[in-house]
Structure formats: C-alpha cells, structure tokens
C-alpha cells in the first residue's frame, strides 16, 4: 500500500492570469491520454478547454473554480488541481495549495515574474509547497526564458536553475536541450506527441555545456555523491544529477526550471517526467493535524493507508446529484460504506458513493487511500471540515480565510427570483468561505460580500445563469470600519420604572483605542459594585454595540472597554438591564472618543507598456492612491501602489481605455487605514442618503 502512495503526485498548477495554465493542463491530459482531442481556452471550435467546465469560464477565458482531475504518467498517478489565476479567487488557490504536495509555477516567457506570480509564490511559501517552474510561451515574440530565470532569483528569491535550454526562440522555437541527459528533444507529430531525441547541434553545444556546468554547480550542494564525482572530475551520471535536484526541490531550496510552449505542444512531456521525478510523493511531505482534545498539540500524520483515517474536505460543489465534497486523505483510507466523523460537528456519517473527478465527468471508485484526492456524495459539511475515523481526535489545520472587503446589494425582480436567489446564495456561501451574505436589517436588502468586484460579479452572473434568478444589483459598497482615536469615560445608568418589574443597572469606566485586536473587555470592578454574574451581560452589551457603529453603521474595531465602577439593585437589576446599560454607556462614550472611519486599502499592481506609465500613475493619483514605486523592465513597467478600495470601483474599464487595453492590474487587500476628513463627510452623506431612500 505504501508503494502505491509513492507513485502518487498531488500537484497544482499556479500562475499569473493568461500565463497558459489551463492550456498546459489541457496538453497534460492529452499526452496522458485522458482526453483525445485538444480544445483551446478560446479556441475556434467553441468547445473550450476541458478544465474550464463552467460556461462562464469558457466565455471569459478564465478559470474560476478549480477543477480536480487525475491522470497517469509512466505508472504514476498524478492528481492535478487547476487553480484560478485572478487574485479575487485567491481562496481557491489557497485551498488547492493546502492539499497539494507540489506545484508547477507557470511563468510567461515574455511577461516573466508578474504580480500574481508573487502572490502565488507567497502562498506556496505559507504552505511550504515545493515547486518546479515552467516557462511557457517560448514561441511568443520577445520570449526570453533566461531573463525569467534571473527574475525568479531576484524577485522571488528562488534558487532557480535551468534544467533545459531552448532550441531557437520566438517563431523559431523548435524544442529543448535536456541538460541532464545532454540530448536535444524535438516534438513531432500533429500534436507534438512524438518525441525525437537527437545529438545537440554544434552551434548550441558550448552553451549547453556551460549551462550544464552551472546546473551541476548549483545542485552539488544537495548531494555528497555528486560533489565527490565533480571533485574526481569524471563523467557525471544523469541519475546523480536527478537525485540531487530531487533533494533540493523537496527541501524547497531549489527550483528546477523547464521551458516550452504548451500552445505549440512543446516541452510538456519532459515537464511531466520532471513532476514524477522531482516533486514529492505524499509520504515525503510532513502533514500535521491538531489534537482536538489539547489544541496546542500538533500530531504528525503517518501517511500510512493502514492507520486510522484523517482527511480534509477542501472544496464543495453542488451538482445535479446533490453536494459533492472534494477530499484529500492524509492518513488511512475511506471506503464505500465506512462510517466517518466530522470533527467540527461531531456528527457521524456513512460514506455512500465515492468518485474520482475529471473536471465535470466522474468515475466511481471503491476507496480513496492516503495521499489521494477524491470526492464523495451526499455529505453535508462546510469547506475546510475534517473527517476522521471514529475515535480519532484529530483535525486538519484550519485554512487562512481573508475577510471580505466589498459588498453589493441584490434586488430580486419577483418572488420566484427571490427563491432562486436564496438557493444560489445558500450554495455559494457553502462553497466559498470568502463569499458571504446577510440581510440588512434597516434596508431589508440582501447583501453579498466578497474579495473584489470581479468576485461578486461572477457570482451574480452564475446566479442568473445557473439558477435563473433575475436579480439587479446596487452599487458596490466598501466594507468600512469605525474606530475611536482617544479615551473617553462613561458613567451610564439604565433605569426603567414603567410598571411591572423595573430595570436598573449603572456602569462606569472608559473606552480606549486598542491596537492589538478588534475588541478587548477589561473588568476592573472591585468590591462587588456590579455582581460577577452580570459582568458577562456587560461584555455582551458592548459586543452588540460594536456590530453597528453609531457613526455610519459599520462594525467598530480596535476598541477596549474597561469597566471600573457601577451599581445594581437587588430586585430590579437583571442581565437585560446590564446589557442595556452597556449599550447606553457605549453610545455615551463613543461620541466623545473622536470616532473615525477606516477604509480598506488595496495593494494595486499595474503592468503597463512603458509609454503609458505616466497615464497610469495619473489614474492612480486621481484615486487617492499612494504610488510606492515604478519598476522599469524594458518595454513593460510595473507600478506598485496603495489605493483605497472605494476608488477602485470600475477601474478595469478606465485602465483599459487609458492604455488601449494593454495594461493589466491585480489588486489585493493590504490594510485598513483612516479615511481623510473630507472623504469621511462624503461617505456619511452617501450613507444617510441611502438610508433615506431605503426608508
């Protein structure tokens, strides 16, 4: 059984938008005979790539939900997760990386290391995923793989080393030279499926020898045998180099770089060889689980299929046959008919149908063993839940989920649309933890929240297409926050004597800015001024007040409430009375504590042809952006800036028109920062107007 795990590779394919991940996956599936025809992402045949199974993905040419697939290459089972390239879908990338053992970082040979590659790289570091790099699009004008390798070193800090060199470039890109075997590889046949290995031509031999020396030099650190062989000066075998590269890669101290052009069917098979040769099998990766009894303790999982089951549900999909739950098994195995326990809810469930996914098609299987990825039907759970064998007190670590930064009001056209919308929202919120929804108590509108405009736009579009929900949307709204800037005291008495049982509670203390978290409640009551059993009610009152700040109605954060005095009445005091007293005290002090509005600031990185750099900087400047710097990279420039999210609404259209569609940008949440006074006034006016019109 362990041998079976050794032949498994769980890999992800991550990269910047339009680097060709989906095209590469398509070619991998073709060469491993999982599919029998190649369809391109925006191909003329109108079929679309196999991995882009949603209509919307095919139409827009971007991958939204990551689809899982598996294939077989030289006796190895390779599970591939195709991940979205857009920052708005980062949670998908993060979830994939959590369950993967290795990744292929796809880079464009013209664009090089772009902003999204940097984000993806940081995520890989967070989850300690070893990776290979594949420099794609070597057939494009301006292709320069060696420049990309040096960018991998300087921009990402990788110890990148070329495993191949190109034979020709741009229009003349013919194949690659393998520096381990010292062979020239050409890709013949209609779809590049026939590999022709030849002797390296005289013209490239010197360069190949030089690059091989560099390769050996870089990897000899990881193998004593190789170092010895180098010192002895004899012939260095292919196996010695491969062993050293594998060690370096798994230790995340080396990034072997491969080159090719997936679209032109070149370089994909050697990359598959590399995936099986250099990326780790599940047994070589240390996975940890949390002990649910003692949460400070972590347990290293064995990866042995014979041990008790530990698995993680990393993705949910609601299909025609009910909820489909994608699982990665870390230890033990899941078989049909087994009983498993959801550690979050403690519920026992019986496993029904087990399947292996291939984009939207599926294959029934009997069991999923340790190290594998599969899916099961009919299990009600949330994304990120752990499933274990009964009696096991372990849970996989929770995944990092960022807070949403933008929201949108949804208005259904009629009752039917309302029902469809509810169904859709119920499904989407289960599938994607960064997508949230609630009903605004004041305006009665349904609000959806997410990570960016595109993120929400895609869900609204899916709602319309998949659920026939006829909805209109309001303007995107930014998730502002409120906080206080100075200490303010309160001394509030809640007193009610209007027949029946009275209410009495007095609370005194102060509110203070707090920087280490969202809220801190400090009880400094001495001498029983407020009985201990009413203290939780006081905290509850403050917490309830934080949900909707008195200034503009957004959540209040960064605040400390300290109570140091109070009074109670033997008969009239109650929990409710102290909750009300705390709310009153909060209102009283908040107004005096100089409240301010905080807004989300986004890190915006724009890649633009150099001639538009000035225009792009102008656009950012108009949007209250702070430009951190501009990086000149020959024909292209990269402008890095920090811009308030409120100013970024509709920016993609504006950027397109200002640069003739030649610039692209990525945006991710950076921090919350105080809104300037003049802007705060405008925000307050807008919110007041919205409330008025809703009423």
């Amino acid at each position, binding site marked *: 059984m362990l041998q079976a795990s050794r032949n498994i590779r769980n890999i992800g394919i991550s990269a910047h938008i339009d680097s060709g991940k989906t095209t590469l996956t398509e070619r991998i599936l073709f060469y491993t005979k999982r599919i029998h025809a190649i369809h391109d992402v925006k191909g003329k045949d109108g079929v679309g790539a196999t991995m882009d199974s949603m209509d919307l993905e095919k139409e827009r040419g971007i991958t939204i939900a990551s689809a899982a697939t598996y294939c077989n290459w030289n006796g190895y089972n390779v599970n591939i997760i195709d991940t979205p390239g857009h920052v708005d879908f980062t949670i998908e990338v993060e979830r994939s990386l959590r369950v993967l053992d290795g990744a292929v970082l796809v880079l464009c040979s013209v664009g090089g290391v772009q902003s999204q590659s940097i984000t993806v790289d940081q995520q890989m570091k967070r989850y300690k995923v070893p990776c290979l790099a594949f420099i794609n699009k070597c057939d494009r004008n301006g292709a320069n793989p060696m420049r990309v390798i040096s960018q991998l070193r300087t921009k990402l800090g990788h110890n990148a080393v070329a495993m191949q060199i190109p034979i020709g470039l741009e229009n003349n890109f013919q194949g690659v030279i393998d520096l381990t075997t010292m062979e020239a590889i050409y890709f013949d046949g209609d779809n590049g499926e026939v590999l022709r290995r030849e002797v390296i031509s005289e013209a490239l031999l010197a360069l190949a020898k030089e690059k091989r020396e560099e390769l050996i030099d870089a990897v000899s650190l990881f193998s004593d045998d190789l170092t010895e062989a180098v010192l002895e000066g004899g012939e260095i075998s292919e196996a010695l180099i491969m062993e050293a590269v594998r060690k370096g890669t798994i230790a995340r101290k080396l990034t072997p770089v491969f080159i090719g052009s997936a679209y032109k069917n070149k370089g994909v098979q050697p990359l598959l060889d590399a995936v099986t040769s250099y990326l780790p099998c599940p047994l070589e990766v240390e996975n940890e689980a949390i002990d649910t009894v003692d949460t400070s303790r972590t347990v290293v999982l064995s990866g042995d299929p014979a041990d008790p089951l530990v698995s993680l549900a990393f993705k949910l999909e609601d299909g025609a046959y009910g909820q489909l739950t994608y699982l990665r098994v870390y230890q033990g195995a899941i078989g049909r008919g087994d009983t498993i326990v959801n550690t979050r809810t403690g519920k026992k469930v019986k496993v029904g149908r087990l399947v292996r996914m291939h984009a939207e098609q599926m294959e029934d299987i009997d069991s999923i063993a340790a190290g594998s990825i599969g899916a099961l039907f009919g299990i009600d759970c949330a994304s990120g839940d752990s499933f274990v064998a009964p009696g096991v007190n372990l849970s996989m670590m929770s995944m990092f989920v960022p807070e949403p930064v933008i929201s949108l009001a949804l208005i259904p056209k009629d009752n039917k649309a309302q029902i469809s919308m509810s169904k859709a929202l119920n499904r989407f919120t289960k599938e994607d933890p960064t997508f949230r929804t609630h009903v605004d108590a004041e305006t009665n509108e349904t609000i959806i929240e997410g990570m960016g405009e595109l993120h929400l736009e895609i869900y609204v579009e899916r709602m319309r297409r998949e659920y026939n929900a006829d909805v209109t949307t309001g303007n995107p709204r930014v998730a502002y926050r409120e906080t206080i800037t100075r200490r303010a005291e309160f001394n509030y008495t809640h007193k009610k004597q209007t027949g029946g049982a009275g209410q009495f509670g007095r609370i005194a203390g102060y509110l203070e800015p707090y920087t280490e978290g969202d809220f801190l409640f400090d009880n400094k009551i001495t001498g029983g001024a407020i009985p201990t059993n009413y203290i939780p009610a006081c905290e509850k009152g403050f917490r309830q007040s934080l949900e909707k700040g008195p200034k503009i109605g957004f959540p209040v954060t960064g605040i400390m409430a300290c109570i140091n005095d109070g009074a109670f009445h033997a008969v009239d005091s109650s929990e409710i009375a102290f909750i009300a007293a705390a709310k009153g005290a909060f209102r009283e002090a908040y107004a005096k504590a100089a409240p301010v509005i905080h807004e989300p600031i986004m890190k915006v990185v724009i890649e633009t042809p150099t001639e538009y750099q000035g225009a792009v*900087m102008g656009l950012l400047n108009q949007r209250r952006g702070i430009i951190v*710097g*501009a990086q000149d990279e020959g024909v292209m420039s990269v402008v*890095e800036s920090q811009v308030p999210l409120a100013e970024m609404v509709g920016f993609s259209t504006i950027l397109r028109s200002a640069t003739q569609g030649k610039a692209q940008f990525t945006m991710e949440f950076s921090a919350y920062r105080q809104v300037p006074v003049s802007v705060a006034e405008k925000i307050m006016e807008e919110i007041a107007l919205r409330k008025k019109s809703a009423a």
Partner: protein
Amino acid sequence: MLHKEISTCYEKESFNPVGRFRRKGRVIYLSDRNIMMMKNELSKRNPLRHLGLDMEILKENAGFGAVMAPAGVGKTALLVQIALLAMMKEFSILHVSLNDPVNKVTLWYDEILQDLTQAYPMERVQDFREDILLHRFIMTFRVDDFSVPKLEERLNDLIVQNIFQPQILIIDGLHFNSQVEPFLVEMKALAEKHHFFVWFSVHIHREEEKAQSGIPLSIVGLHHYFQVILKIEEKGDYLSLQAIKGGLQSIATGSELRLDPTTMLITD
C-alpha cells in the same frame, strides 16, 4: 515651543507632494503631534548629524554626494539612512535603484526604519511610518537601460501631473567606470533644471590603488563633481565611516563614525 511649531504648521497649507489630505485650522491632533515629536527626536538623535550633513548641504541645489564602499559593506543602508533623515525633515526623496526591484528597496526602508524606531510603541511607529513614507518614491531601472533622458521622461510624468516633486535623488547601483563622466554632466544639468541634490552609491574595489585623498585612482578625476564624498571601510569588527570631502565636523576632529555591521546603522 513645540505647540507653537505645530499650530503654525497647520495654519498654512503645507506642500502636498503626493496628494495627501492635510488638515487645516488650528486644531492639533494627538496623532500628528506624536509624529512630529518622533521626527524631532529621531532627527536629533540621529548619529548622521555628526557628519555635519544637517540638511543644509542637501538644500544646496544641484549638488552631488557619493557614498563609496566595496560590495556588501553598506552603501545602500547608509543611503537609506540619509534618505530617512531627510524624509523626517519633509524632504521628498526619489530613490532610483538599478539593482533591486521596488519591493526589495521597500524592504531596506522598512528594516532600517524598524531598527531606528524600535524604542517606540508599535501604533506610533505605524503612523510615523505612513507619514514619512509619503515623502518617498521608488523607481527602478535595469542598469543597462538607464540613462538621463529616460530618467527625465519618467520624472516629468511625476512632476507634470503633480504626483511627486523630488528634492533629493538617490541613485543606487550606477557603474562608476571610465564612461560615467558624460552621464554625470547630463545629470548635473538635470539636477540644475529641477533643483535637486543627488546622492550616488559608488562601488569601489578593495585592492584598487588610491590617491592621497583616499579616492580610488580610477575615479579620482571625477571628484570635482561631488560636494560630499563619504567612504565606508571595513576595520576588524566594525565599519568605519569617514567623510573624504565635504568640510564636515568629523574630519575636523579627526574622528570617524562607526557602523554596526549587523544592522548597518551608525552607532552613536
């Protein structure tokens, strides 16, 4: 005295290089007062004052300054310290790097700022950092692509749109070889046109022969372009910082400043 200073600052609308909203009126905000106090304290405590740089020299329009050292000895760290000191005095700095990408340059500033402000509470440092970093703009170029006309083009993008108006330029990573003189001439003209002071990092080789002044022979002919020349040398377990040119106090007293090799900060 301090209160007076602060209220005057808010009475007039101060120069706003990056479109930041300045509060008007006589109100003194606590956070702003904290920032000003930190700026004053850090500037007064900054050991660079011993070099007599005192910013007066930086105000000298179109002047050139150089920090000379072999590789890995702390040229960038010193330039960043000079830049931070100037930023605390509300000078606008354009940092041009020919070696490192923007995020690496940012990291230099963050790390040195962190070392300089470690005695202060975190929230004050955050406000202070946001305030002074508004006075910085980073540009990076590939060294083989870098030229004065190109820099001017980029600079005009910033100045014409009123995005950023630098008063001090830092050029880190320029190769000082036999062909650099025409560049310096062009740069001088640009500096005169826009009235800014330019600091350069000058990479020298350890074994290179030096003139009596301590300047390597290969660039001794260029020294008249510079108003200030600082030199960093390795001396056992510390790095020594001397002013070779510039009429500075440390030279007058024959003393030297020391750089801590771990933090690259000047020790007092």
